[in-house]
């Protein structure tokens, strides 16, 4: 009997070899009693499986109920609208990027961002012994008293001789700080400043800023180009960024 149950199990769980299976089926067809017993056994196994299914069904129902409880509206909303939400978020991102990009900075804003008065190198200080006016100008400029500094500048540019180009640059910057960009441009374009190896790049940079403030964007870009293309130049990075930003103003 015990062996029979074992062979019933092996047959039902497909653990028999092909030969064993054929032998068992032959035995079933010959022995009517064994066949009836096997049928009854199969019924029992099927009932046990049905019991298992019922238990599993209960487990799944409990899981679904728990999910419903924990899920709630938020989860359902997320399930159904996550794709739409993702698309909406993407469009919102693109739209905000577009608005951010389309907001053009004004020349005034750019000027305020990039303009720094020229710092006179320490080596030039105290050099203008024979020109007391320029000495006073230097003192006023270093004290950031631009009004006094501008008042000390000569009216006629042709009278300026033998002055350090650094001081001439500072004079231009003092005028820029006071809002006199045209006069400042004259100082920056003086041959003593523009042709000097130490100050020519600074001169270009400040001329570009003056032109930016005067609204001459194309001319400003022309002045920035040589600085932006020479990585060894003074104000190389600033010139690159400013050139990029004024491209949108053109």
């Amino acid at each position, binding site marked *: 009997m015990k062996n029979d149950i074992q062979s019933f199990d092996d047959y039902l769980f497909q653990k028999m070899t092909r030969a064993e299976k054929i032998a068992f089926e032959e035995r079933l067809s010959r022995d009517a009693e064994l066949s009836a017993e096997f049928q009854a056994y199969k*019924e029992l196994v099927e009932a046990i499986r049905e019991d298992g299914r019922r238990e599993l069904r209960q487990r799944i129902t409990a899981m679904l109920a728990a999910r419903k409880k924990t899920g709630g509206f938020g989860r359902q909303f997320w399930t159904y609208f996550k794709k739409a939400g993702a698309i909406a978020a993407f469009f919102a991102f693109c739209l905000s990027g577009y608005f951010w990009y389309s907001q053009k900075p004004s020349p005034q804003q750019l000027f305020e961002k990039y303009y720094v008065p020229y710092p006179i190198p320490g080596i030039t200080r105290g050099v203008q012994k024979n020109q007391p006016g320029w000495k006073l100008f230097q003192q006023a400029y270093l004290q950031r008293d631009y009004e006094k500094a501008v008042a000390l500048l000569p009216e006629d540019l042709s009278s300026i001789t033998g002055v350090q180009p650094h001081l001439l640059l500072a004079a231009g910057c003092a005028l820029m700080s006071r809002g006199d960009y045209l006069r400042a441009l004259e100082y920056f374009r003086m041959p003593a400043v523009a042709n000097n190896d130490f100050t020519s790049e600074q001169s270009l940079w400040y001329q570009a800023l003056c032109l930016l403030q005067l609204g001459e964007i194309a001319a400003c870009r022309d002045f920035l180009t040589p600085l932006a293309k020479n990585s060894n130049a003074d104000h190389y990075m600033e010139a690159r960024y400013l050139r990029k930003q004024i491209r949108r103003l053109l």
Partner: protein
Amino acid sequence: MVTFCCFVELRRYMLLLQPLMKKLDDYAILDDLKSAERWRNDLALSKIYDLHYNEIARHVFRNGGTTEDSEDVFQEALIILYEKVRQPGFVLDGRLSGFLLGISKNIWLKKLRRLRQQNQIVQSSRAVTIQVAEEPLHYELPESRAQLMKLLSMLNEDCRTILRLYYFERLSMAEIAKRMGYNNAQVAKNKKSRCMQLLRQLACAETKKRSTFPKEDYEK
């Protein structure tokens, strides 16, 4: 520009790998479902619910079903999958989603056919049809099976669990021993034999009782 190109390339590879990753996900779920540990089974059921319930529900809604119908169909499909996975030699050919959807479609089609037949019968006898639409999805068990299940409920909880683990979940004796907290597989085997013997005796006694008494008397 370089970053953008890298991003595009990466995305391309990820797209290529996506089916493989999903397939690996399916295998992981089936492994959990096959496992002898109950918490892993529950985890797999929960994952399947998260990943595939919406698809099945959408199919049922499109074919005139309600939320309750979709839950019933999903439940039946899960039970079939649970049993299939534990059968020896089961191999998942395609994707799990396709497999589940196929089962669900069949279940829903069967239910629709049964409902249509019942509707026809009821309409021909001029009865109210609304009652038919609210019938549960689960089919009636044969009377003999129902009797056997009643006998099964007479066994103690341990016996029922062992028989269920062996015949329904198809666990090995070692796994059953581990799950039930027995010392070794032999103990589980003996216990299972004893329980099965008890169930057979109960079934024999029941058959004798039914053959001795006429059916009407027995039911009274």
